[in-house]
């Protein structure tokens, strides 16, 4: 596998960001709104990819990190009246703390046991949300008031309900996370993570503390997912337990597998692909779930490493 020159890799990623920026001015209203949502959820997928793609740890519980950010930010606004930046920071802190605790416990296992343990922790988190319904709104969830979703920057107030502000906010978050992910995977630390994925015993023999590195990866992954959840609460105004259910743990796995695990842009491609395949096919038939299923099977058959993963394997070996 060829190594990308830094300029080439950064140019590609900045180009994608520029493209997304340009799309804001040309997309029809519906697709404009949908892409804002996709970018926020692609951040969730990027967080998942950090652990699954680069460390090879398959978690079935990442909905809890997304929800930690969602509730951390949402409840800070609803119950404490915090400002948007403070609430976003609260969401990040909740995700990071939760990831640290879960990481310390779950990393005592690996493989299938890791999947089961993360899934169980996520289920506990989900049930805690239901249990404290007086605060969380239980399964019905809570609305983050529109009046509180205003970003004050100096003398300027930006309503996050404004479609353009929302799109640009989503783009800023997406861009930051994308570039951070690129820096991480190109760094020495990123290489250690890949080494752990490929052969953990050998990495240990080389003198690396694999537990600490994996724990750091869990925290980074959880924090990125929490950033996505916090942004979701603040941009779209709803926090609900559905986002903590197992369905939302499987979704990022699916998006990453589709787009290409261990590729920096794969999560965006996968999320985009999944959203639009369903949206388009459902316009033609009520049996659109069948078409979606077949499309997914074909993809796995012919693009076994996901869309970008296969492109990298066959044509563009330098893709990060």
């Amino acid at each position, binding site marked *: *596998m060829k190594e990308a020159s830094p300029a080439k890799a950064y140019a590609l990623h900045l180009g994608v960001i520029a493209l997304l920026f340009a799309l804001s001015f040309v997309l*029809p*209203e*519906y697709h404009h*709104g*949908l892409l804002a*949502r996709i970018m926020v959820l692609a951040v969730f997928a990027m967080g998942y990819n950090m652990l699954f793609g*680069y460390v090879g740890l398959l978690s079935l519980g990442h909905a809890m990190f997304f929800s930690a950010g969602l509730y951390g930010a949402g409840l800070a606004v609803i119950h404490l009246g915090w400002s948007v930046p403070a609430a976003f920071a609260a969401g990040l802190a909740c995700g990071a703390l939760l990831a640290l605790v879960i990481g310390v416990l779950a990393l005592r296992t690996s493989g299938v046991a890791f999947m089961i343990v993360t899934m169980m922790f996520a289920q506990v988190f989900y049930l805690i949300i*239901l249990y404290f*319904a007086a605060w969380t*709104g*239980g*399964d*019905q*969830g*809570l*609305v983050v008031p*529109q009046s509180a979703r205003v970003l004050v920057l100096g003398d300027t107030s930006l309503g996050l*309900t404004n479609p353009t502000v929302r799109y640009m906010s989503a783009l800023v978050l997406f861009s930051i996370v994308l570039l951070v992910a690129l820096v991480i*995977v*190109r760094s020495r630390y*990123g*290489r250690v993570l*890949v080494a752990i*994925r*490929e052969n953990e015993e050998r990495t240990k023999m080389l003198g690396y503390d694999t537990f600490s590195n994996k724990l750091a990866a869990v925290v980074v992954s959880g924090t990125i997912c929490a950033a996505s959840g916090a942004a979701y609460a603040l941009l*779209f*105004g*709803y926090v*609900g337990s*559905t*986002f903590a259910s197992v*369905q939302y743990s*499987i*979704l990022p796995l*699916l998006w990453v*597998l589709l787009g290409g*695990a*261990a590729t920096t842009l794969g999560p965006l491609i996968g999320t985009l692909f*999944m959203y639009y395949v*369903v*949206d388009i096919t*459902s*316009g*033609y038939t*009520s049996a*659109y*779930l069948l078409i*979606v*299923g077949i499309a*997914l*099977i074909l993809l*796995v*058959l012919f693009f*076994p*490493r*996901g869309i970008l*993963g296969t492109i*990298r394997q066959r044509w563009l070996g330098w893709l*990060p």
Partner: protein
Amino acid sequence: MTDKNGFFDLSKTGLTRRTALKGLAAGAGLAVAPGFVRYSQAQSSAPIKIGFQSHRTGIGAAYGRWYERTTAAAVKAINEAGGINGRPVEVIIEDDGTDPGRGAEVVGKFATQHKTDIVYGTLFSHVVIGSAPAAGEAKMPYFVVSEGHHVASTKLNRYVFQPGITDVKSQIQAMAPWIAANAGKKVTQIFPDFAFGYDHRDYLPPALKAQGAEVIAQIAIPPTESSFTKYFPQIPAETEVIYHVMVGPAVLTFVKELGEFYGSNRPQLFGFIDSLEATDINSPGLEFLDGSHFWEGSPRYAQPDDSAAQKAYRAAVGIDDNGAAVGDPKDVSTAAHMFGCWETLYVVKKAMEDAGYKGPEDRAKLVEATEALTEFAEGPEHPQGPKTFNGKIHQCFGIQNISKVEGGRLNVVHKTKIEDGLYEPEGDYTTQPL
């Protein structure tokens, strides 16, 4: 980054893993896809376009089916009578998968792609709450048929209305006088341990207390529970009435096990028909309910004193005297709730006509015209009964039915008054900007 050993190359990992991943991908697709929305053909601008946020898939599918049938019947009747402001009504349906995240996307799609005049028809509370912000931001009037207390709580926004069905707080409050006077003074509640159950948990005790009765025990059952026998010893021996609101597929097991626990010597039973909507009351295992009482919004079975409007409504929607689809006795309706679709559409018609509604630019006028409504007389447009409407909390209030299970059918034994379900408003939407 390198991927030397083909860690993610599914083609190198053998049949088992590939098959597993295919299954996972397909399964996950099926799990998540219900919420994804579908395109609809572009519409001309002439008709009034109503975006129907339907639960076609997910846990609300049984309700969604009957909500669609009722909506189609109401729209047909409205169009045959000249439409709204002389324009035909067209309904555009999008499946929300009974998912709040998807619900918000569907509202956005109605607003920005279909460009509907209003959004309507949502039932499940979490979908309503999840979608309400999107409706408020798009300044899209959003008429729900949910019976949740969320609208009346004034925690949503000025664009959300529930004018066609009463809310659960009102329903519970209206039941209390009859329970205290006819069933018993010492009540044990059994309810599912999530929001639907919490409404009953929170609103029933004060309502009963006001009638000189009391809740002596509250038993919350986790929604994942499939066997209930272990909870029954918690029911105090002095219980005179068991008030149950279990929902979901487990309700048949619940009733069967309750019957095995008590035998023939049981306390009075009172429940909400939500437990058994779209379920045949004569299903095996439900025999134990014979002689018990249920709340019904609108009666499932035809009653001897049904009004001409009620009869016409039932015929239009296509339900027989047993509340099942005409021609398919096994397809039992959600009669207690779906009338709300019919009545909501007539409220929309009235408000649009009052507002002189011409198009999306008049949405604010439509909101104000709806808020100005105060009463809906019983008749073809409101076959369930008369209602009052509180424009400050965007919620209607109406009569409720208490029915007894007798001879394999539900017979209405008491109708409450509108006043029984009134409560102090918790806020005022009209103070919010449009």
